[in-house]
């Protein structure tokens, strides 16, 4: 049995979980998601992009509950938020539980996404109201 992140390049499965971004050593630009090709500001190649650890916490800038979806997962209704991370970048992620509105402080939590027949588990990052 293994536990893996759905997006292993974006996450470290610690407690609390960590989000991975990058910082360009050429122009110091911080970005998320980490880019496999190069810096969008100064054009430095990927070798010049350093991994940057971002705390999975921030403030909700926008929120929407989704009622129609083209795939069975995530099951509707589910809620998505735009989150301003304390480390700078702005991300979008699913929020778990109630009580999330614009201005809410939220934190990341690992949620079991899929479990296959062998018991291998895929986990994904969602956000909830900060405890």
């Amino acid at each position, binding site marked *: 049995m293994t536990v893996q992140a759905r997006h292993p390049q974006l996450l470290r499965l610690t407690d609390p979980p960590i*989000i991975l971004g990058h910082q360009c050593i050429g122009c110091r630009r911080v970005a998320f998601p980490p880019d*496999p*090709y190069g810096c969008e500001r100064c054009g430095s190649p990927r070798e010049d992009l350093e991994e940057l650890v971002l705390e999975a916490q921030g403030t909700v800038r*926008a929120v*929407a509950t*989704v009622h129609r979806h083209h795939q069975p997962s995530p099951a509707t209704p589910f809620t*998505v938020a*735009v989150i*301003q991370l304390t480390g700078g970048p702005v991300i*979008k992620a699913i929020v778990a539980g109630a009580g999330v509105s614009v201005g809410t402080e939220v934190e990341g939590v690992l949620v079991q996404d899929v479990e296959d027949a062998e018991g291998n588990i895929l986990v994904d990052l969602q956000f909830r109201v900060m405890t």
Partner: protein
Amino acid sequence: MNETNVLRDSPVYVVGIGLHRYQRRSDTTYVELGLTAARSALSDAGITWPDVEAAYTGTALLGMGSSRIMLSRLGATGIPMTQVENASASGSSSVAQACLEVASGRSDVVLALGVDKPRGGLGAAPSQAGIENLESGAVVPFTHFALLASEYMHLHGVTAEQVAKVALKNHRNGASNQYAQRQKVRTLDEILAEPISGAMTRLQCCPVGEGAAAVVVASEDGIRRLHLDRSRAVRIAASVTRTEGLYDAGVGIDAALTAETGSAAFDQAGLEPSDIDVLEVHDAFAIEELLYAEALGLCSPGEAASLIESGEFDLGGRCALSPSGGLLAMGHPIGPTGTGQVVEVTRQLRGEAGSRQHPGAQIGLTHMVGIGAVCVVHLLVSD
């Protein structure tokens, strides 16, 4: 020589327009759709196919090589034909290429066509770029715009009912447009029913169907040589294409890109936002019309919702916003959409829009954004 000087020194005019109605996917082939629009545009211009020296086909979904099999049925004249793909702005880019070709002096008469038929999914290249994101699979376009609506409503104290009034207006305009996919006046209750994502309901999201739109553009020499009706010619005063730059974290890219592109277009034409009488914008989702009206400088940030509510953007109001019904009612068949905007604005500037005519329309604007992100703005003037 920069683009500004090209259009000033070598004016380019829209001389013919044609459409095939936007509609749900049917058994009609794209060839039939495209030929209907093209024949209509040639007839409107009062020219024949051998007068046309080049053709650009805006299409995002048909696959490679769509032009010749279609346009050769007007006569296999052997002229250069090129497909143009720029996501939702493909049709706008076909007009931009045709305009550039005429302005450059290579041709005097060029056809810009937009044609598409929907198929499962959009097949957008960015999703194949190998760049993962946390929200992949959960945030599709309607949720991207539902999130922008959430932020806008919170920031400006605007209600979901006010945003829905964009769709109320556009469905009303579309109801008198024989080429619109949706031709029904709706009540606010109908528009607010059937939630899709956040504040966006079914009738605040555009239908993606099939259709075609065609525009013939010509130079001064072309108009003279072919004895075209100069009084119905509409001048393209600006043609600007830009792609997304780097904006501060959290800045809405669609509106920021629109502001840059619009500003460059106004500079190119020597016009101001307050000069605009009619405009068609990329209102794929109701919230977008508010964002773009503000980004294009028609009003201050946060002001568009109350101006829509008070009728300032109605036909007959301060300026007519989405007179065709916009993407929300006329529809968004992808390839044709941007070309169709030029058709509608030309019709308005000629004074030939019938029951949808905005009184005294002399200056118009078309605006599309597309996945990428790209933005294309044209300014049209009836001299």
